[in-house]
Structure formats: structure tokens, C-alpha cells
């Protein structure tokens, strides 16, 4: 839970780390922002990612990483305050507005983001994207959910299983 800023005399300038996407693009970002990722946090606390070295992220392409870092940079100050007990209502409303806007994206981008948030273990982002998908499928029938998520039409077996479920759990479809 310690604040990610290291006390190694780097006063004034925040410590920076470099992340390298799967397509070899280098992103320089404040350590505090990158530390929102549980996966990266340990490496960064150990002093990794600085200078000429970078932390390679073979599962995240540059478009997705840039989007992930946009989220981390926005949320880092609040996270550094330990969930922001001093945050004003205005700050919180601003973060909420940012979050809503942030997930207003194509499903393919959303998909990459879900996978990246999962791999990098960024708790807030994992929850944000999951909630977005939940909102997309809320109130829909299984067939409508399939269409919403872009699944192909069900096979006859799948269709039979769907019908069986509707029979067994009729109350969930009322």
C-alpha cells in the first residue's frame, strides 16, 4: 500500500518508467501511473523499467497500451491518495465522466482492453470494462446477448440447450 513514489532523491521530477508494447513501441510513463497494474508494480518497486531498459509487454499492442495508459494516468492521482478520501465531489464526478466516455468504444477495442486489464491486473479498469459489458447485456435474452456480443447464430444443439434452460429457469425470463 506504500506510495509508489520512491524517495531516492528524485524530488521535483516524478520517476518515469518505459513500457514496450508487443509491436515494439516504447511508452514512457510516470511510475505511479504504471503501478496501477499489479503485474507491473513489483517490477517497478524493484527499480525496473527505468533508464534504457524497458518492461516488455508481449501481450499488449501499442493501440491498446496507449488506451490503458490513458486510464492509468487519469486515475493515478486518486489511487495515490488511497482511494481518494480527500477527493472532492467534483473530482469524483470528473473521473466518472471520464470513465463513461472511456468505454464508449468499438467492441474490438473493448475486447483488447478487457484482456489487457486482466493481464496487467488493473483492478479499476477490470471492473469498469466488465460493468460496460454487463450494461450491454442487461435485460436481454440469451439470443439477444449473442447478437450483441457478435456471436454466430447458435447450432441446433446450442439452441436446444437454450430452450432447456428457458424451461428450467422460466422465472429468470419473466
Amino acid at each position, binding site marked *: 500500500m506504500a506510495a509508489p513514489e520512491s524517495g531516492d532523491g528524485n524530488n521535483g521530477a516524478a520517476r518515469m518508467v518505459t513500457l514496450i508494447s508487443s509491436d515494439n513501441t516504447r511508452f514512457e510513463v510516470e511510475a505511479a501511473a504504471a503501478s496501477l497494474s499489479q503485474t507491473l508494480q513489483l517490477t517497478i518497486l524493484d527499480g525496473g523499467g527505468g533508464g534504457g531498459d524497458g518492461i516488455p509487454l508481449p501481450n499488449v499492442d501499442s493501440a491498446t497500451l496507449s488506451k490503458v495508459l490513458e486510464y492509468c494516468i487519469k486515475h493515478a492521482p486518486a489511487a495515490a491518495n488511497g482511494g481518494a478520501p480527500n477527493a472532492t465531489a467534483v473530482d469524483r464526478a470528473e473521473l466518472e465522466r471520464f470513465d463513461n466516455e472511456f468505454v464508449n468504444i468499438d*467492441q474490438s477495442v473493448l*475486447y483488447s482492453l478487457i484482456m489487457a486489464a486482466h493481464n496487467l491486473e488493473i483492478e479499476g479498469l*477490470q*471492473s469498469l470494462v*466488465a460493468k460496460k*459489458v454487463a450494461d450491454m447485456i442487461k435485460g436481454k435474452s*440469451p439470443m439477444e446477448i449473442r447478437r450483441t456480443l457478435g456471436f*454466430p447464430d447458435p447450432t441446433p444443439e446450442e439452441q436446444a440447450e437454450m430452450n432447456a434452460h428457458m424451461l428450467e429457469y422460466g422465472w429468470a425470463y419473466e
Partner: protein
Amino acid sequence: MEASPPCRRPQPPSPASSLGPLPPEILQTIISHLPIRDAVRTSAVSRAWRRLWETTPDLALEWGCGTDLAVADAVLARYSGPVRSFNFFLHQEARPFELFPSYEEAFERADDWITILAGKGVRSLTLGFSEDSDDLPHTLQTTLFSCRELTRLRLCNCDFPLVPEESVRFPNLTWCSLDSVGFKYAGEKDVVALISGSPLLEVLWLKDPYFPYDENSFKKGCVIEAPNLRHLKIVSEDDFGWKMGDLPSIETVEINIKDYDINRDFVQLMTALAEVKKLILKMPVSCFLFLVAGFIYHHVIQETNSSHTVF
């Protein structure tokens, strides 16, 4: 026309509009954000989603009015927990009469649910019973105290089980609202035991509590002491002699009593609540006039007398 072909048939999924395969733990994170009906329906979406809701932690099992008891039974039988929240209102209008076996039977089901929910680590529990005054209120079983993970508890129109003394009953409870809840075993002592057995309690609402009539216990009153209590609200017809003890964290207090005890010691009450940030004291006009008269007597006449003795 060729540039914009009519799309009569469902389009094959294009990369931009399709969510690819997701691992089960991500699907479960998605399911955990859904109400229970939606969560159960996801089971039929595809094989990847099949029965995932049953092992998704922290689902909210919240039922609207009119839900069949058997539905809650079925879900509790399948769902592994832990349960984030469970709420159910067993009202008369909930089901047509012939479908609603009897209150006794329905209320016993609620007791079974509490036992099951205790095993599934329920964190927020809301149970409302019939408001029909012809029915005897249902007395909850002591299995309620097995719900040790509870952080929120809301009960309406039932009797509280006997609160065992001298032990922590709800170690995590921070929010407690009891509406028309009876304490028929030990009266005010049960309330005191409940409060002292919930050391983290921050919010307590007591609306129309019911106590067995006992002249002596009323005179002694019930002293509310809680180290973390921030918000307290008491609404009742009768003055059960509530007294305020040590409340170091208190911020707001609302007391709305229709019929204050003639011997009610308002000075003790006000002194004990001196640190409160917001105090709402509601009382009938007659009682207010009585209070003002008492204030004038204590602070004007008596002080005048004392000043006479000094000079």
C-alpha cells in the same frame, strides 16, 4: 444502391462488433455486475457461460415483490456464494392467496434461508415480513447470529431472537435498520446486547421497536453506547427511556417520540449529545412547552436563586 446493401439477414460478426472468447474469470467479473435474473440467463448464452453464475462470487440475490419462494430456494441451492446481498419481502400481496401457502410456512422458509446464507457468508441481509397486524410477528431464529460476515442488516415486522450476552455477535456490522421489530425476550437489554455485540456499528435506525411491557425495565431505560456509532435515528410512539451513554463518534441524531415519558431527563439527553453535529428532536407541542417550562425553571429561576446566595 450497391453502396448500401439492404441487411435483411443478421450480419456475420465483423471484428469491430464482436467480443472474442473470454476466460471464465473475466466472464464471472461481468456476471458479478448483473442482477440475479440476468446472471442466471447468461447460462443459456453459450457453453462458455454455462452455469458460471453458480460459482461467481459476490452476487446480489435481490428479489422484487411477488417472487415465488421456490425461486429463492432454487437459487440458494445452486449458488455457491459468497453472497454479497440478499433481500426478500414476504408480503401478503406478494402472491395470490392460493399460491402463498401460509405465513407460518413462508416464514419458516426465511429461517432456512438465514441458515443457508450464514454458510454462504452473506454480507448484506434484508428481510421484510407481513405487515398484517392479524398475524403474530415471526420470531427469527438464533441462526441469525451465525451470519458473522454481515455488514448491513435490515429487518421489518418481525421479532428479534434472544441476543446472547457478553460476546461479539456481528463483528462486521456497520449498518443496522430495524423497522417494527420486537424484542420480546429481554426487551431493551436485547437492544443493548445487539449494539455492544456489533463493535463496528456506524448507523442505527430503530423505527417503532416493540418491547414487552415491563414497568421496571422502562424506568431503568436503555443506555445506547457504541464506540463507532455516527448516525442514530429512533422513531417510536412511546418513550422507552432511551439514554445516551458514551458515543465518541456520533455525528447526527434524530429522536422522534410521540409520547415522551413524564420523567424524561432531557438535561441528561442533551448533555450526552453535546458533541453531536446535527440533532433533530421531534416532539408534540405539549411536550415542547413542558420542556421550555423546565428549562426556564432550571436555568433562570435556579440561577437567580444561586446569584442571591452569592451576593
